């Protein structure tokens, strides 16, 4: 799984550089997110602009990270979620779990 990392204010941004998240690479994603949390990051932003497709295991990976970071009173925020991917968050009502913003700047303005 191709991931890139950037630090913006208090946030650690994880940019997913893949068109597709499925059971083949969702394990890597989960591991990378959990690793960031274990390193002490409490404010994660996952940047999904490249992601055209996500399956249930991909949602599961994000949810696992959310649960871990939430237990430590941190935050996991999603940005740039494409319409068809967003529809899957809506269908599973995971829109009620994750903070979802259109743009990275919206997060920085809001929380900054």
């Amino acid at each position, binding site marked *: 799984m191709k991931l890139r990392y950037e630090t913006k204010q208090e946030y650690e941004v994880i940019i997913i550089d893949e068109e597709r998240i499925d059971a083949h690479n969702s394990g890597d994603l989960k591991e990378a997110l959990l690793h960031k949390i274990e390193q002490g990051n409490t404010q994660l932003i996952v940047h999904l602009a490249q992601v055209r497709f996500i*399956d*249930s295991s991909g949602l599961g990976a994000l949810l696992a990270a959310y*649960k871990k970071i939430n237990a430590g009173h941190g935050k996991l925020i999603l940005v740039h979620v494409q319409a068809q991917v967003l529809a899957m968050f809506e269908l599973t009502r995971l829109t009620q779990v994750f903070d979802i913003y259109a743009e990275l700047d919206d997060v920085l303005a809001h929380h900054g």
Partner: protein
Amino acid sequence: MGIPVFQVDVIIPTQTRYLRLIGHIGERIANELDTYTGDKVQLAYDLNLVLTEATANAIKHAKTDSPKETVRILIQIEENELIIKVFDHGQGFDLKNVEPLDFANPQETGMGLFFIKTYMDSVRYTMTPEVNILEISKKLQ
């Protein structure tokens, strides 16, 4: 049984790296479904997803992880219906025993069959001594 129009029959090893091939074939098939009156871009996504979920389950629950172990995915397009059959050689399961999603208490697993049921019109799982078949269908009008 309707009139068969075309079919795609794929056999892959039980390896998740082949999921994207299966998903992409599903997307491409959606483009050819001219009798479908709904949103074809959405249908392409849905078939990609449903094929990915069903195949991932067959891979996950395969009996062995021998490189010779395979999953067969048969996609049949009839005039008014699309039928997907995924054949697995695992221990099988009972669809009736699959818990519905608990929206109030989301879990990391158990969403695959939920998506399949939501996007498609019927789902059936049949076990035989030789092979198990997940059969999914969607009306095309």
